[in-house]
Each structure stands twice: as structure tokens, then as C-alpha cells.
């Protein structure tokens, strides 16, 4: 059993107005120190697979087909071994 932590963000080429708004607000708080804010989604899920390779393949497929829209979004994920299904 593996636990996947998936991060989905808008592609760099796409303006992220929410990130921009946050960046401007942060800028007024701590001048110049924080920049390039991108807002995304975090998805956790468990994968029942015998090997890390298989788990990777299953999550990759889920991201490509449904969790992210490759036209406008990028995704990354990490896998960790998990004993049971609990967060």
C-alpha cells in the first residue's frame, strides 16, 4: 500500500490571478521577500499496488486522465509506503 500526495497547479504559461492577488497582499506585508505565488490543489489518495513502480503508473494515469487537465495544469506527486489506509 502506498500513499500519494499530489499537487496540481496552473501551468506556468497561464496567469494565476488568485496567486497574483495573494502575492500583492503578501508584498504589502513583507516587502519584496515573497514572490511568484501559485495557488493549486492538494489531493491525497491511497494506492493498492505491489510495487512502487506499479503505484507510480496508477497515479500517473489518474493524474493524466482525470485529476489534472494537461491543457491548463501541471502536476507532481510523491509516494510513500503506508501500512494501512489512514491519514
Amino acid at each position, binding site marked *: 500500500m502506498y500513499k500519494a500526495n499530489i499537487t496540481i497547479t496552473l501551468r506556468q*504559461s*497561464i*496567469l494565476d*490571478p488568485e496567486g497574483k*492577488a495573494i502575492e500583492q497582499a503578501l508584498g504589502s506585508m513583507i516587502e519584496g521577500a515573497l514572490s511568484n505565488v501559485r495557488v493549486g490543489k492538494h489531493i491525497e489518495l491511497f494506492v493498492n499496488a505491489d510495487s512502487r513502480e506499479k503505484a507510480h503508473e496508477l497515479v500517473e494515469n489518474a493524474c493524466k486522465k*482525470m485529476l489534472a*487537465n494537461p*491543457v*491548463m495544469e501541471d502536476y507532481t506527486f510523491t509516494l510513500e509506503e503506508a501500512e494501512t489506509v489512514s491519514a
Partner: protein
Amino acid sequence: MTRPRFGIVVFPGSNCDHDAYHVAKHVMDRDAVFLWHKDTDLQDSDVIIIPGGFSYGDYLRGGAIAQFSPIITEVRKHAERGGLVVGICNGFQVLTEASLLPGALIRNASRRFVCKEVFLKVENGDTAFTSKLDTSLPMRLHVAHGEGNYYADPDTLKRLEDENRVVFRYTDPTGNPTPESNPNGSSNNIAGIINERGNVLGMMPHPERCSESILGSVDGRGVFESMVDYIIGERVEATA
């Protein structure tokens, strides 16, 4: 009842389904049926309308979950057979998510939900959806969406333009596609596009909300009239 028959898809969260049904049935005086998202039968519909709303609560992304519903599998087959499919607002999002149309609809550039009257230039009056529309004057329709900002990579945009597949464009009242007349930041002021074959249309504005004078505009009715005309023509051809 009178052909063509309009099939209106209903997802949990659809909220323009009854408007589309009303226009098809009572304004156009045609056959109309609702198609539940779990159904696998299009009930012999000639035209499939994927209406506006918030299918599946817009969870994940607008239209992202709807594309996996049983009815969309059938809609895909209908489109592959050359049948007419029109996605309005959330329906347009469903069609891009299902890859029946290219590109994607992202958050409005303003980050605000926009609900207002817009002007649209009919850029291609030679389609199954626009043949009855006046291309000389912009049409007046309503938009109501938070994610209607049409995005596609530069190659796709060029192809859409070159192939005359940008059907509707946001303009000012005189027909100029100015930045001010673009309600959501869409690339090239795009409001509606068709697929390569010309039988699938996606548009953000709502023709079904502008088909009766009591609602302030009848400019949307022409979209329904065009589809009726196309289907009847097709039937005449088939029997000739």
C-alpha cells in the same frame, strides 16, 4: 411530436436544463426529452444539449467529473456519428474536458463571476448552429459564469482561426472585438468554437436565455432555428 428531437442532458447540479427544454419544446415547438446522467439511451435525439450549471458541484474542475458519466459515453458516440451536440456554459466546459473540443475554460481574468449582457459577432454563419443568424450585426446574449476564460496554446488558436472554427467572438455593440468587450479574458475574445467536423459547438453565452422577447432578447433563438433547419435538411436529403 415534431422532429428534430432535442435531448437535454441533466447532471446533478445542472440548472439551465429546464430553460433549454422550454425553448426547444415551447418556443420552437419541437420534441424535447431530458437525459439523466446515468442513462445510456439518447432516446433517439437528433440534437444533444449539454446545459449550463454546476455539474457535480464543479468539483475538481468545471466539467471534469461529468465527462466520465454514462450519458457522455453515448454523447461521444452521437458526435462520432456526426450528430449535433451543443454545450452551453458548463456544457462547453464538459465538452473541452471530454476532448470533444480543444482548449480549456479557466477562471475569469477578473476572478469575478460575470453575469451580464454581451455582444457577439457571428464569425462563421455557415455552420449547423449559425445558418439562421444575422452575421452583419452583433447578437445580444447573456453570460453568467466564473470560469469562461477560453484558453488554448498558440498552435491550437491559430488552427481554430485558420479553419474558421471560432464561431462567436465577444465584441462591442458595433462588432469590434475590443479588450473592454471581453467579459472573462478569453484568448482572441473567443466566445464559442466548433470541432473540426462542424457538428459539435461549445459556447459560454446562453442562447436559451435569449429566445423570447419577454426576456429582453430573441437573438439566441437563431441558434435553435439553425439546428432545426439543419436536421430537417438532413432528413430531406436522406429520403431524396
